[in-house]
């Protein structure tokens, strides 16, 4: 079977999607909301990696620009949620 250069990146991106599902499981389980923010942060990094890989896979440069914009916007989102969480008392929830 013949493997091109871009197929290597496709295999990597599929593995990243699998890792994203694993992190989504932590977003479901995590007992406190900081745990969920950590899971969201991990998903953000994985998705930026997927966007870089898929942009190379499709060979379209504008797709990489979305990765740059998303990397900065997801940081703003994380800061917003962290700012709110720090102003309240966290208690263990079972749901």
């Amino acid at each position, binding site marked *: 079977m013949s493997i091109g250069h871009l197929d290597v990146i496709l295999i990597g991106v599929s593995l990243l999607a699998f890792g994203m599902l694993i992190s989504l499981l932590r977003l479901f389980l995590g007992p406190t909301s900081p745990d969920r923010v950590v899971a969201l942060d991990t998903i953000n990094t994985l998705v930026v990696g997927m966007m870089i890989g898929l942009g190379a896979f499709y060979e379209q440069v504008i*797709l990489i620009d979305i990765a740059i914009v998303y990397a900065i916007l997801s940081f703003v989102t994380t800061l*917003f949620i962290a700012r709110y969480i720090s102003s309240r008392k966290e208690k263990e929830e079972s*749901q």
Partner: protein
Amino acid sequence: MEFFTFLYDALHFMVLFGIVGSALLVVKFKDLVSATIALAACSLLVSLEFFILQAPDVAIAEAAVGAGLTTAILIFAIKSTRGREEY
């Protein structure tokens, strides 16, 4: 090559599964901040799905609105509530 077509479809299905899963989590969580986090994850994955379908303009709008703006507005709204859903 058939294997890579299969892999591409598998990638697509994993992202779709993630969208449905995180959307279910939004409904399930009673804690409002957790629901907001799940909503951010959902809109992030929707943006990724547009990305895979090669619609860069839609993806960039979804990333800006879904991840940045909606989360900020919802957090501002939650600040004036008790923070939990009760019934």
